[in-house]
């Protein structure tokens, strides 16, 4: 059943915007994975749940501030408030997780923290499912509808907001990493924890900060996700978590620009990339194949660059 595509410019621009939107969310969440990996060399499987908790906290805040009755400039304030609440919720959750489930495993066999993280992930997911009776919560429908457009190019306000705020958050994070003392400490620990501690960096504190920064990004992503898709549930963290992790690896895990690039590459591959493949004769890959495309892309890129797009190449060894 091939779809007859007329392939208008507006079709491609729409798909491109869709890809950027999804990619922004992937990128924001991927940052948490990549930073934690950078300093601890562990896959923080519970990061998707941190994102989920942020989304629920933001929901709670929005409802407390009036929910669907909000209008006018109050909306902007409420969203800002929700983002702050979500960030704090994600950050506190993440700090507690780090303290209880990861720090005791510093120096343990490499895969122990991975299983601990999976445990945390299961725990949080089912805790929220239990508390919500597995029902979805619906974000208040307060964001102004409508779109900006010029000719065939069109972008809805919410998409614009989502992309712009993600980019702003990432720019902020990048500035923190590159320009501040804290950022230097993080980079030093990522490079070599032993050396960093010899240089007077408090490794434990730095690692906590890494979790804080990652969780803050995930909290923002949670609110943006809620505002955009409006449906949130206890099990929502898992898939974006896996995708974001894929994005982080795609970009070169441990690399911050890599995570951002990976997120966008993945987002675009799932939308624009898939439609481009559909242009080939006889190909009809529906949405159900999107993950196949995402993972095939991952394998392809890793075959050519075994350590991701942005990873540094080490030229000497042995």
């Amino acid at each position, binding site marked *: 059943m091939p779809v007859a595509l007329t392939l208008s410019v507006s079709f491609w621009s729409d798909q491109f915007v869709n890809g950027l939107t999804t990619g922004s969310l992937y990128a924001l969440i991927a940052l948490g994975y990549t930073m934690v990996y950078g300093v601890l060399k562990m896959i923080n499987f519970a990061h998707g749940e941190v994102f989920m908790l942020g989304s629920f906290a933001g929901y709670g805040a929005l409802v407390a501030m009036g929910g669907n009755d909000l209008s006018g400039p109050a909306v902007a304030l409420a969203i800002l408030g929700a983002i702050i609440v979500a960030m704090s919720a994600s950050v506190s959750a993440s700090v507690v997780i780090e303290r209880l489930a990861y720090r005791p495993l510093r120096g343990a066999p490499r895969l122990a923290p991975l299983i601990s993280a999976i445990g945390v992930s299961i725990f949080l997911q089912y805790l929220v499912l239990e508390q919500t009776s597995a029902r979805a919560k619906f974000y208040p429908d307060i964001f102004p509808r409508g779109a900006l457009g010029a000719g065939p190019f069109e972008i809805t306000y919410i998409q614009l907001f989502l992309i712009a705020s993600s980019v702003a958050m990432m720019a902020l994070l990048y500035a923190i990493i590159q320009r501040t003392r804290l950022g230097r400490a993080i980079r030093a620990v990522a490079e070599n924890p032993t050396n960093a501690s010899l240089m007077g960096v408090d490794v434990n504190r730095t690692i906590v900060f890494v979790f804080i920064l990652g969780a803050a990004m995930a909290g923002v992503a949670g609110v943006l996700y809620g505002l955009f898709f409006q449906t949130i549930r206890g099990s929502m963290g898992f898939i974006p978590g896996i995708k974001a992790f894929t994005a982080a690896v795609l970009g070169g895990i441990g690399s911050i620009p890599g995570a951002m690039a990976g997120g966008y590459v993945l987002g675009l591959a799932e939308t624009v990339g898939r439609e481009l493949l559909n242009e080939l004769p006889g190909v009809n890959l529906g949405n159900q194949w999107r993950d196949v495309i995402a993972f095939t892309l991952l394998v392809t890129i890793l075959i050519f660059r075994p350590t991701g797009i942005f990873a540094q*190449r080490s*030229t*000497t*060894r*042995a």
Partner: protein
Amino acid sequence: MTAAELVVDGLGMKFEGLTALAEITLRVPPGEIHGLIGPNGAGKTTLFNCLTGFYRPTSGAIYLTGQRIDGLPPHVITGLGIARTFQNIRLFANMTVLENVLVGQHQHIAVGGTDILSTRRPVYPTPVERILILRGFPRAAVNGIIEIAGAIARPPRVRTAEAAAVARARDLLAAVGLRGRENDLARNLPYGDQRRLEIARALATRPSLLLLDEPTAGMNPQEAAAMVALIRRIRDEFETTIILIEHQMRVVMGVCENITVLDYGRKIAEGPPAAIQRNPTVIEAYLGTRAIQGGGHAAP
């Protein structure tokens, strides 16, 4: 085992525009103990990595007793007779001393099928060759199955081979002075013993050319002297050619019959120790004469 002759012809190695080795030409006759010296970053370890197949040289050729070996994968080169140790000791830390040596004997323990994937073929195939490699694949699979079946069924042949390998491993350990430590974990050995174990493991591959990367690094003069004696004994008893990278000039000058000096990836001198010690280019490269004449660590 008979000692091998090594010929390096115009070898060059570049990393993304950076020249690590240029136009290295070298001949090490069979049975010689040959020194490789030069300041840090001169390209000594890079040369070892090229010889052992870790790096593919960007130009030039390497011959081991007449057979060209550059471009072959590391395990094939090992099979042809080159073994090495590492500058920063790289033992299999969580395996026992005995197991470390048994891994070294890997290619000499019969298990069934032959090692088809290790056919002596360059690793950089043309597109046509890529398909040919795939054609060899079923044979490799059959060999794999035979090997697995052998390991599970453990027929007498495999048992005998294992027992022989263990006996030989014990002999090798005794030869380097590690008798009685067979069942210790490698990571629990003292530093000097770890160096010895690396050498025993390298000898287990039955090399005709042994590459030692700073075998006395971090040792005190007594230990270093013992190591020198060991190196001589290895050359005599195991009939190998030996190339060693060394910073302790006393060791180099004492044990080597000929020395090659590298600087910035180029060969700047070659000759017997006495000649090298007087060579003005070498002295200049080492920023003065003290290091060469005074022994001890030459590197800045």
